[in-house]
């Protein structure tokens, strides 16, 4: 048993921590990045490329640096601590994940080097309005014709969908609407005719896009992974994404908890620091416990996400998401409460952590959804 980072991982942590600490040292800076045309800082994205972060999870033979889930965890935690807006999760973890697991040699060669240098951004067009959290509920169709495939349908909540150059699109090539069989993944250039996008600001300062595909024609080269067999990849890569998102949440909770404890020490009422009230001390301790429970499950997810046992892996990821969600809600709410009025304002960075944590809860399955997944397979402890 060992929960330590290797010396190389420590180096990675130091460099990303340093970058984020300097680039995201204030809310004003974050607001300035948010107002840039793409909704994040392209300069920081270029720095990610320089540091090798964009190539981290790809194998060396594909042009990457051969990192695993722990490396991703280290990066995502730092991004969470700084409340970074850059589309690392969507491009590297999600998009990159599909290329790593399902991409052909040609696709990997065409796209991975471009991702690594920061020239190519990806997004996943998967969720549909009626689907809620069911990954197999896909009504978008891809019909085979002599010119390739014609995609028709609407995708929702495409994270960072406006800045993406390339979409991973899930579409139905056969089977019933909610059947796991019959889903095919495609790599679709964002400029393909027949794609229209509407982008919304998200509650946490990011962006998400509603995409309509109408008669969008793609060639057979665009097929990612096996025809009709895309679902297992969806599930696996989204599992990895949940592990990464858990790390981001832990980073955000850590910062928010730290801010709260500092505030308890500095804010004075009734002639004393409010941190001298025992009831508030206990609340800060409860927040710490929630944070540590979340951290443990973040590590659990990182260590289990590569497991070959799909059932075990699925349960682990769902269990982690439940704990992350609960801790995120508790830490977020308590932080606002313990700050009083100041915690309710956009001028205060703490409020932005609270909002991001709230949104993380609803991404890739809320508490109810994942609790149901764990319960459905009989929980984590085998019955006596």
């Amino acid at each position: 048993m060992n929960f330590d980072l290797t010396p190389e991982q420590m180096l990675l942590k130091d460099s990303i921590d340093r970058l984020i600490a300097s680039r995201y040292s204030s809310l004003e800076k974050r607001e300035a990045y948010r107002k840039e045309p793409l909704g994040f800082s392209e300069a920081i994205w270029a720095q990610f490329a320089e540091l090798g972060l964009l190539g981290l999870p790809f194998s060396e033979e594909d042009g990457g640096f051969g990192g695993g889930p722990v490396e991703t965890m280290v990066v995502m935690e730092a991004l969470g601590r700084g409340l970074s807006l850059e589309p690392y999760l969507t491009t590297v973890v999600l998009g990159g994940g599909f290329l790593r697991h399902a991409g052909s040699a040609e696709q990997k060669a065409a796209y991975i080097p471009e991702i690594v240098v920061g020239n190519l951004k990806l997004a996943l067009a998967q969720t549909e309005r009626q689907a809620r959290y069911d990954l197999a509920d896909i009504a978008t169709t891809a019909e085979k014709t002599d010119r390739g495939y014609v995609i028709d349908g609407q995708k929702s909540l495409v994270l960072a969908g406006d800045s993406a150059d390339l979409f991973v699109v899930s579409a139905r090539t056969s089977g019933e609407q909610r059947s796991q069989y019959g889903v095919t993944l495609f790599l679709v250039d964002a400029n393909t005719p027949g794609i229209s996008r509407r982008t919304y600001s998200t509650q946490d300062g990011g962006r998400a896009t509603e995409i309509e595909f109408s008669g969008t024609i793609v060639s057979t080269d665009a097929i990612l992974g096996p025809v009709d067999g895309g679902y297992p990849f969806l599930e696996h890569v989204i599992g990895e994404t949940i592990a990464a998102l858990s790390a981001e949440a832990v980073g955000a909770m850590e910062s928010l908890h730290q801010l709260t404890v500092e505030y308890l020490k500095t804010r004075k009422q009734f002639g004393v620091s409010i941190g001298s009230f025992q009831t508030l001390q206990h609340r800060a301790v409860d927040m710490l416990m929630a944070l540590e429970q979340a951290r443990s499950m973040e590590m659990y997810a990182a260590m289990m996400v590569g497991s070959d046992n799909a059932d075990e892996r699925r349960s682990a990821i769902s269990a982690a998401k439940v704990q992350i969600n609960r801790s995120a809600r508790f830490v977020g709410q308590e932080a606002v409460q313990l700050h009083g009025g100041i915690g309710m304002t956009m001028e205060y960075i703490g409020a932005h952590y609270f909002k991001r944590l709230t949104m993380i809860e609803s991404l890739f399955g809320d508490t109810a959804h994942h609790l149901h997944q764990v319960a459905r397979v009989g929980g984590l402890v085998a019955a006596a």
Partner: protein
Amino acid sequence: MDLRFTEEENAFRDEVRSFFRTEIPAEIRRKVSEGRRLSREDYVISQRILNARDWAVPHWPLEWGGQPWTPIQRYIFTEELLQAAVPLPLQFNCYMVGPVIAAFGSEEQKKRFLPRIANLDDWWCQGFSEPGAGSDLASLKTRALREGDFYVVDGQKTWTTLGQYADWIFCLVRTDPTVKKQAGISFLLIDMKTPGITVRPIITIDGRHEVNEIFFDNVRVPIENLVGEENKGWDYAKFLLANERTGIARIGLSKERIARIKRLAKEVPVGTGTLWDNRDFRARVASVEIELKALEITQMRVVATQSKTGSSKPDPASSILKIKGSELQQTTTELLLEAAGPYALLTGDQIGAGPNEPPGGFDWVDAAAPTYFNNRKVTIYGGSNEIQRNVIARAILGL
């Protein structure tokens, strides 16, 4: 013991219910229900309709427009109002400064201000909190120095709700810095048009302009705008805060929200059915309803005691109502957030030009998260829930 209302009470309930649902514009009630922003005009229209029926300030003394209602009738009135998603008559006017002036103001002040307060001819805001004086309100520093027939006011107030709409602000100011902090505070009425007042918006986490900072720089206030006696302001403030805390349980509001969540859940597709078909979700809604029912009965017990003793003095049990009521309001917003599911992520703010279609195909999801965010305030203001617990520990438990 009997839970039922009398025949008269039932008739009264039917009367107010139908009035709220037919006389107050549906558009305003829709905004309240959906957690959308109300304009200044919306508040004014709604309150004037109530006032024309003599119902804007039923809890005031009779001679100033009050109604000779029993505590039970008042309770029915407020609950029905909230359940019909009618905006409460402006709190600062009807539940704060009005009762203070009616109880402690001069005849002159009553005549001058009360009718305009009830009709929302003047919009009032509450200038109590300061950056350094939140829970510890008595440590406030905004100073009022007597100079002839004027007080000269210098200092800063903060968190002033809807101060951007206000014609007047009622302030706690320090008139004697040499005595114990509670003993040197006065209650002053200040015209917002007086030179030297600056209002700066504070945007809250739901992205709205709901609160403000207000700066006073050499603001000259005529001495006739002092309420009651100089240096007795703390007593009036305590009276006001106690009023603010009763009726803050807002059970009607939580009921209205739950009813709406059920309707929305029946429209949210999940699998082959809707969210409302999901037994786990229903159980979570039911469990909130059970707590709400318990609180409703608690509130009725408080009201019944008031009826019996004829006392309208706020009792410490009102702190229980405030704590539980505010927590339940927050829980209902969590259910709303859950109903919106992943779509809660989207704001209605579409980047760039284009057809402004509602996000996610639902016209309500973009308000779900802001409603949840905004409601974090209900356990902070009006005396935070920590402070309320301190009050109960001291006043009820004697600890």
